[in-house]
């Protein structure tokens, strides 16, 4: 296995995001809080082989979204995302 195979994209968490937010989100543009880059969530770098899901900006690699699923709660950190656009 190439370690680059560990890096997926937002398509890989479409089902998870639907489960958490009740809607399709992969086509939603997101703005990186670090560098200001704007990309559809589907184009962000996503790491799922981890204790949680980590979504990183593909330009500056800052963490934009972090998701941890516990048995009764889910922690969603979006401090690295300046803006999400729906519609």
């Amino acid at each position, binding site marked *: 296995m190439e370690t680059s195979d560990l890096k997926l994209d937002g398509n*890989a968490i479409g089902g998870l995001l639907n*489960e958490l937010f009740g809607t399709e989100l*992969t086509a939603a543009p997101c703005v990186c809080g670090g560098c200001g880059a704007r990309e559809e969530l589907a184009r962000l770098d996503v790491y799922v*082989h981890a204790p949680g899901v980590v979504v990183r900006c593909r330009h500056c690699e800052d963490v934009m979204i972090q998701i941890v699923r516990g048995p009764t709660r889910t922690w969603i950190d979006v401090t690295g995302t300046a803006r999400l656009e729906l519609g």
Partner: protein
Amino acid sequence: MARAAVLGRLAWLAAEVAGTKWETPRVRTLELSVPGWADHLAGQHLDVRLTAEDGYQAQRSYSIASAPGETLALTVERLDDGEVSPYLVDEAREGDGFEVRGPIGGYFVWEPDDPTPVLLVGGGSGVVPLMAMARSRAQVGGTAPMRLLYSSRSLEDVIYRDELEELPGDGFDVVHTLTREQPAGWTDYSRRIDPELLAEVAWPVEDEPKVFVCGSTRFVDAAADGLVGLGYDPRWIRTERFGATG
């Protein structure tokens, strides 16, 4: 974004295996019967959830291989140390059940009423969602020029080989590259996709084509970068990276 792609919160649905078909020694298609399944768009995927008798669960995503309206089908490649794929490829038989959730995805989606020329670039099992797009076009008699550039290790690994021989014509064609082993007399490409190959195969930049690239992360990033190097606008290119998830 595709209008039908937003369906609200998806629920897990019961799926029953209605048919199976070997595509290659490592790849099998499962036809599924899923009561309550809302139709999908070409390019979308679904999540599969398996539950063992002691309650242990494993979940993976698989691209939908079938065109909208056809019997729902998944095409799965067995990964040697995988947990779900060996079950779906080697164990599951007609009548077996598991759960699916979908359709998922509003970005990596193609609708056949779009007249823009389309380039599909697939590596290995990355061809699956692209096949759904080709089947979707054939089903409605779409007229957008569509070309599939499909990279496989050897002829034996080419998924949907017979169907890909029959589909071409009327604006659809297939270019193969076999990267590891080629049969005698092979006239298509024999190497990994590189900028020269792309320059020969890709639609001209003036066409402002739509591109869908799917495969391993390395494959997808190299193909997308190669096309941008030819002058393609990154916004024309939609990508889906498959991991070696199993």
